[in-house]
């Protein structure tokens, strides 16, 4: 069974926490250490960011992490190699997250093969159009039992959400607000209305809410109306600041208590 599906079916009674980090930042060789440390500290799922020169959906923190990773010499191949080296130790699902140009350049089929080889369970490609997903990517991903995770946003129509729900598996990445990645101090009423509206749609896929989660309030709001939350920029900042994953994840747990 795909590890993503397994996570959501086995942990349906508790709220999940997934973290994003950019592979290759702060150090090129640190990817394996970050993943194992997060796993040992109770994180349920990890998004492994693939650095890209022109990340259109990302705010300053993740942009800059990508720039550092590329300066450090990170490539998709090197990231896969590092993941492969810890394949047998990783129990939680890993989801690759990167932009289409890098994945396309590597080759969709080759990308899927490498995911399987290194134990990743799925991928998020924010600029992959849904039509291209259905036509070009899904048939290959299905063959390799990988989950391509698609996003919905406050701008996505109900009809389209139903369509996305019908044609995807694993979970749906619910973007909290009209924004790029980054931290927000609170979610206003409009966002809570949106969370409630989607929750009431009773979709077949579980939802994880991401973008803007950085403290207790935003985390609780997200977890109340979805299967769990995804934290990206806040953790990337802490990882840069602390320099090692253990201190960063400890600091993150502190931050989300407040």
């Amino acid at each position: 069974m795909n590890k993503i599906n397994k996570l959501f079916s086995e942990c349906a009674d508790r709220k999940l926490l997934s973290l994003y980090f950019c592979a290759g930042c702060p150090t090129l060789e640190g990817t394996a250490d970050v993943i194992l440390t997060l796993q040992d500290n109770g994180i349920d799922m990890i998004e492994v960011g693939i650095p890209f020169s022109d990340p259109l959906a990302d705010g300053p923190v993740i942009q800059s992490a990508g720039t550092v990773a590329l300066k450090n010499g990170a490539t998709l191949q090197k990231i896969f190699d590092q993941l492969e080296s810890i394949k047998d130790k990783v129990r939680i699902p890993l989801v690759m997250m990167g932009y289409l140009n890098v994945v396309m350049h590597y080759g969709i089929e080759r990308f899927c093969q490498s995911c399987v080889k290194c134990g990743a369970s799925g991928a998020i490609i924010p600029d992959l159009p849904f039509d291209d997903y259905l036509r070009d990517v899904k048939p290959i991903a299905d063959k390799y039992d990988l989950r391509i995770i698609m996003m919905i946003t406050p701008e996505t129509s109900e009809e389209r959400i139903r369509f996305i729900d019908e044609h995807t598996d694993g979970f749906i990445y619910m973007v909290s607000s009209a924004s790029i990645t980054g931290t927000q101090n609170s979610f206003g009423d409009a966002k809570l209305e949106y969370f409630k509206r989607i929750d009431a749609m009773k979709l077949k896929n579980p939802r994880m809410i991401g973008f803007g989660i950085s403290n207790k309030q935003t985390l609780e709001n997200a977890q109340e109306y979805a299967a769990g939350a995804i934290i990206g920029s806040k953790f990337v900042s802490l990882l840069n600041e602390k320099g090692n994953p253990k201190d960063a994840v400890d600091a993150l747990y502190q931050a989300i208590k407040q």
Partner: protein
Amino acid sequence: MEKKNYFVDDKGFYGKFGGAYVPEILYKCVTDLQQSYLPIIESKEFQDEYRQLLKDYVGRPSPLYFAKRMSEKYGCKLYLKREDLNHTGAHKINNTIGQILMARKMGKTRIIAETGAGQHGVATATVCALMNMKCEIFMGKTDVERQHTNVERMKMLGATVHPVTTGNMTLSDACSEAIRDWCCHPQDTFYIVGSTMGPHPYPDIVAKMQSVISEELKGQLDEKIGRNYPDYLIACVGGGSNAAGTIYHYIDDERVKIVLAEAGGHGIDTDYTAATMHCGTEGIIHGARTLVMQTDDGQIKEAFTISAGLDYPGIGPMHANLAQCGRTKILAINDDEAIYAGYELTRMEGIIPAIESAHAIAALKKLTFKPDDVVVLTVSGRGDKDVQTYLNNKQMAKEYGNF
């Protein structure tokens, strides 16, 4: 032989290039625009207002000028399409007038735009002043420094200029930042894209707005030479908007040879170039599948050229398709060749062209004409903004640089 379609198809593609590769947050905006742009552009209300503004505000039609001395030098009949004489000094305003009318029709209240040389930024700030709309311009910090006068013009016009400090701090980074802003304000904001790039329908919108250039050429050529087509069309190409406008009504007319000049920078065999059609491979940039200069690992390379307006590692999807079909001939013009050509036009015809346009002038030297060949070359903008760059590079101007 099956007739090729060089224009956009109903899915937003030019051959295999084009499409709309945007994050989900922009899906609705882009789809709304795809569904409404043709009905708006084709409406009488839009056409009446657009045409009136082009005539009375921009100063169109722009003249078609017979360049006698340059014709003698290059052994052809050279006509210059004078987009440099438009209000604000370049072709860019043809497009911003059209797009701001669309924005208003769609009920948007806030305008954003990217700019490289600052010409599109000025043209956008100008129409925002005209229509009393809020205007935010994204411009790479490097360009803010090298095109300072245009920054001050935008501010005078009431726009907020955001210097972009990511990447190379040039046009490509400005585009990325404008798209990020759009992601954060999808409901009230209209993104006025300045070139034939970005997600569908932008390449088609911009080409249609600039097509007034070739529309006018037909009548002007008919009047001057008794036939409504030239033997050659020449334009410079960065994202590709003035080139698209210059060739639009002649794309299917195989009697007309099309030559486009892209920026070679230090040379296409160096790492310092913006010659995407020579050095690029298929990829995705700013929402379009097109030719892109990129590394073996799929990272977008930084473009390099003396010309801020051509400093882009991608190319409009329409041009990528035309070039791959063999419809257009693409020449790479290096910095020194462009500077020399800019001085040459200045001394021989009394016209100081924008450095972007000087790339098109430099193409003349690389072509062989018959004496009766009618050559139309678009001078996309004027060189006022580039005087300092011309002066700093006098050594490239050879005999024209001794002053």
